[in-house]
């Protein structure tokens, strides 16, 4: 249905593991995209390497979004990088603990990360260190919670007149 560029996927993994072997937690191909999980200590140099390496050239940050893994007590960030010269996407994931969610900012690598990181902070509470202006962007400034975390279900949980088990969660 969709084509997978196995050659290039392997090149990316090889290049990355040459430099960041210990930091690569996991790599797999999900659907049509290579997905690499990198430990948070190495995420900044790894992203910089992905952008600057002459064979890889992931020069375009397509999107960046937060994730919440309640069962692991972690918050994560997912970067979708696009190499316009090679026309290849790669998905980079990283995670940080829920109690002290700190990650380095990517704004110095791609300026477009500015608002996307603000949005991620706004909804998940991830602190991006080195961000020029890390304040809320879509929600109210005096809001205290981070609404996209899973501990805030959409419906009032005290109600028992509604059976939501059919929705799977």
């Amino acid at each position: 249905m969709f084509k997978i560029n196995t050659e290039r996927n392997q090149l990316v993994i090889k290049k990355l593991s040459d430099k960041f072997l210990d930091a690569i937690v996991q790599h797999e191909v999900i659907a049509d995209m290579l997905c690499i999980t990198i430990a948070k200590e190495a995420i900044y140099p790894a992203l910089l390497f992905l952008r600057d390496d002459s064979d890889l050239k992931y020069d375009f940050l397509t999107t960046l979004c937060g994730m919440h893994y309640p069962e692991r007590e972690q918050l994560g960030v997912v970067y979708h990088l696009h190499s316009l010269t090679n026309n290849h996407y790669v998905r980079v994931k990283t995670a940080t603990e829920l109690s002290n969610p700190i990650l380095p900012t990517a704004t110095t690598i791609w300026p477009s990360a500015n608002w996307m990181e603000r949005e991620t902070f706004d909804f998940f509470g991830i602190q991006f260190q080195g961000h020029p202006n890390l304040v809320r962007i879509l929600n109210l400034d005096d809001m205290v919670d981070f609404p996209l975390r899973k501990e805030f279900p959409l419906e009032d949980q005290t109600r028992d007149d509604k059976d939501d088990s059919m929705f799977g969660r």
Partner: protein
Amino acid sequence: MANELHTDYWERDFVRTEEPKEYNTLNVGPTHPATHGVFQNVMLMDGEFIVETEQTIGYIHRAFEKIAERRPFYQITPLTDRLNYCSAPLNNMGWHMTVEKLLGIETPKRVDYLRIVIMELARIADHLICNSVIGVDSGALTGFTYLFQSREFIYEIYEEICGSRLTTNMGRIGGFERNFSAKAWDKIRYFLKTYPAKLAEFENLLARNRIFMDRTINVGSFPADRALAYGFTGPNLRACGVDYDVRVMNPYCSYDEFDFFIPLGQNGDTYDRFMVRQEEMRQSLYIIEQAIAKLDKMEDKQIYYASDPRFVLPPKEKVYNNMEALIWHFKIVMGETDIPAGEVYHCIEAANGELGFYLVSDGGRTPSRLHFRRPCFIYYQAYPEMVKGTMLSDAILTMSSMNVIAGELDA
């Protein structure tokens, strides 16, 4: 004594040191007619020139990403309508294709071509609004009133296909809810026949108009490397001279079978953005013509959905007369079908650029996370850099040529 005072007075006038500049703060928005949407710019002004801009957005934030975590997949389509509401069908189709990618549904060719017809119509409707609004903001209202008739006609075509006009909720996962009616085809053909002349008339009003050219050339120009760094996509990026178009680079929905070219600008200024959109409308017409030619050649004209009983509603006659069809109908409507666990990213070339859906499913009946890559949200952050040092009236024109849609900005 009097003499001394006199000389003192004159001396003071001649050696007057420069006074500190007086800056004014100006609010453009949140409800200002020139922003064409609900968002605010607080501008620090030196006379008529902009020193600094601070943007405030989020006035119509509706938390779609959160709402989507509680809805079955087919109920998320109406949410996507409200992202870029000027071209809702594009968002709808993008969402359907994302889900199809996750589920592994392969759509028939006829569905792809029908989708292309409707997506390109939506692109025309979006570009048409943007370009005519550039005219309005530079003081030329006439073109706007001409082209709005055409937009009205496109909305009538939507109406024939899905019943609604602005927020269309068009199509279903796997295809369309019903076949295009004969009336819809008549209207599409009529549109294809009459629109080029109207577009040419509109372009005659503006493209070589001395006032319009003076107002737009070299206004809000942005170099290509900065545009890429700021994540520009779509016509705004192509106006800077970068030929990135998702339809060509990562073809979806059988776009690889179509013949069209990508118009490019040079300076990335307001005039280039205008001209790129004008040419894209012509290319869209050309694509629709090709799609109709392909559709006419097909023998079976009754295929309009993929055959996947898990997600495509059975026809009503069957629901009333056949037990299996009735069961499937209820299973789908009640959102009782489990989705395989997985994650996909799918992007389409929407009217504003790369519209992406990052969908994570944990095997439940709703997405566990859904993230929209909204092109507006990403490129609008470059606005302060684009308008710094320019005049207020140029900044307004720059904003309308960037086609910032509040719904897409705030999700």
